[in-house]
């Protein structure tokens, strides 16, 4: 059901992206950031929305992807697409290695463990100045033109299309993953682990694979941010980013691909608008907007859209 809606929304989102490019040529940087936020939120929601497990340290994999791009370029991996997939692979491997400690336990222990993973990696990146630039971040890494052809121009056109292509790829992959036999098993874990064990399901294995895939996609998001902004810094690993993505998924409608993308757009836009409106109080205002929308819209934006569709059908 939800997957069918997410499929139907794919062309709508595609058109929206093209329209935004045509209509708001001055805002390409913001739109690119929103698309990166959407990639990250989609990766996170594979855990929360589809598998039913929570994480408070998901930025670890986002940041890992970003730093991988910068560090790998020192070893000659400067072509963005190559760097992108290498970064995804690094995040995937680290997520897989960490997955056994995430798979066991309940929601509360998972929150604490993922929070711990996040801050550990943050501190490690902070200490390893030689590699990461510590608190200053890194911007002196080389990037060759995309596919050997397209330079990242200062108008942000290449960045826009590149982020868009990665987002479209991630959306399509997640559409497939969530409608696969594996995706059905993830829904099973979300809905009833007792029953999953009683049908012989290897739940820990499923959770580990879900965590790995989610980490890989988060790594892609981080890589795109590093490449399009040509900068990496500690905040890409930080707790704020982990918490933000949780809010985006909840606002958009957790468990729905289209909802999460729309949620990212809404969140990114409101955050930008509020921070220009009031550089001092925008945090407060954002908090109020979020609380109001969570309280007033059950199931987030996707839930509201579904109710609207049901109402129109009557």
């Amino acid at each position, binding site marked *: 059901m939800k997957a069918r809606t997410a499929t139907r929304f794919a062309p709508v989102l595609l058109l929206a992206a093209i329209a935004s490019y045509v209509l708001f040529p001055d805002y390409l940087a913001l739109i690119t950031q929103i698309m990166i936020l959407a990639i990250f939120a989609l990766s996170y929601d594979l855990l929360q929305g589809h598998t039913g497990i929570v994480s408070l340290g998901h930025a670890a994999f986002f940041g890992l992807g970003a730093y991988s791009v910068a560090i790998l370029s020192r070893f000659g991996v400067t072509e963005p697409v190559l760097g992108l997939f290498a970064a995804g692979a690094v995040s995937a491997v680290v997520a897989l290695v960490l997955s056994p400690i995430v798979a066991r336990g309940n929601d509360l222990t998972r929150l604490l463990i993922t929070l711990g993973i996040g801050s550990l990696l943050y501190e490690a990146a902070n200490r390893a100045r030689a590699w990461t630039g510590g608190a200053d971040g890194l911007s002196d890494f080389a990037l060759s033109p995309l596919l050997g052809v397209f330079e990242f121009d200062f108008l942000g056109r290449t960045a826009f299309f590149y982020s868009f292509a990665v987002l479209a790829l991630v959306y399509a992959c997640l559409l*497939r993953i969530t409608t696969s*036999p594996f995706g*059905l098993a993830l829904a099973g874990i979300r809905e009833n682990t007792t029953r999953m*064990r*009683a*049908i*012989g*399901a290897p739940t820990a294995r*499923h959770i580990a*694979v879900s965590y790995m895939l989610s980490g890989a996609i988060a790594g892609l998001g981080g890589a795109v941010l590093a490449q399009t902004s040509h900068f990496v810094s500690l905040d890409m690993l930080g707790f704020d980013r982990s918490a933000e993505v949780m809010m985006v998924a909840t606002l958009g409608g957790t468990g729905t691909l289209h909802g999460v993308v729309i949620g990212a757009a809404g969140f990114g836009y409101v955050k930008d608008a509020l921070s220009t409106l009031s550089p001092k109080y925008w945090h407060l205002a954002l908090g109020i907007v979020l609380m109001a929308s969570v309280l007033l819209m059950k199931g987030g934006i996707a839930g509201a859209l579904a109710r609207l569709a049901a109402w129109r059908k009557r």
Partner: protein
Amino acid sequence: MTAALESRNLAVRYGHFSAVGGVDLAIAPGARHALIGPNGAGKTTLVHALTGNVAATAGSVHLDGEDITHLAQPARVRKGLARTFQINQLFRSQTVLENVLLAVFERQRATRAFWRSATGDRRAIAEAREHIALVNLASLADQPVHRLAYGQQRMVEIAIALATRPRVLILDEPAAGVPTTESAVIFERLEALPREMTLIFVEHDMNLVFRFAERITVLVAGKVLTEGTPAEISADERVREVYLGRRGHHAA
């Protein structure tokens, strides 16, 4: 002949409370075996221990002669030991078909595949629909489970268990919470299952027990009081006292 399912001195303690206190069971292959006893006798706990939902505190469990005591539940399921639950354990927002299909996929280990479409697997879907048809739910296959009536949800419990293709199936009060007229239908469906499948069921309704069971074990306070044919059990004074007698008293 080796028992299809056997327990030796099986015990489960919750703190200082002994819920199952040293149970010896031997269920013959193809049996239709009832497990009865008053509320709180430890029937569900015994089922938990047999199937691996809770760890046994002492004793052992054997499936076709193989010691499975230290296997986790999923491993026992893959060896052919399935169960249903006294209180529904379903994927409530998923359709009936998805509930059963997932069990088929898990049995085939097809759930490892995240690159294929689930709905593209026509064979698995056809099999799932067969299990669903067997429990009379064919017309409701595409409904989300939470929309079904309670009795129909009990049928989904059974269909999911069947989709694991068990050799031994333990049913914990399959007709719990269902009107008597419907509970007979559930048991008639169970009677139609292949004879080679070993069935163990917990049931409170004595009419159903005497109608469908070929052997009966009576559990009282976590221990086996006696075991025998329906005729032997109904003639047993002690059973009358602790169980039938009490029920008879209620009826009067």
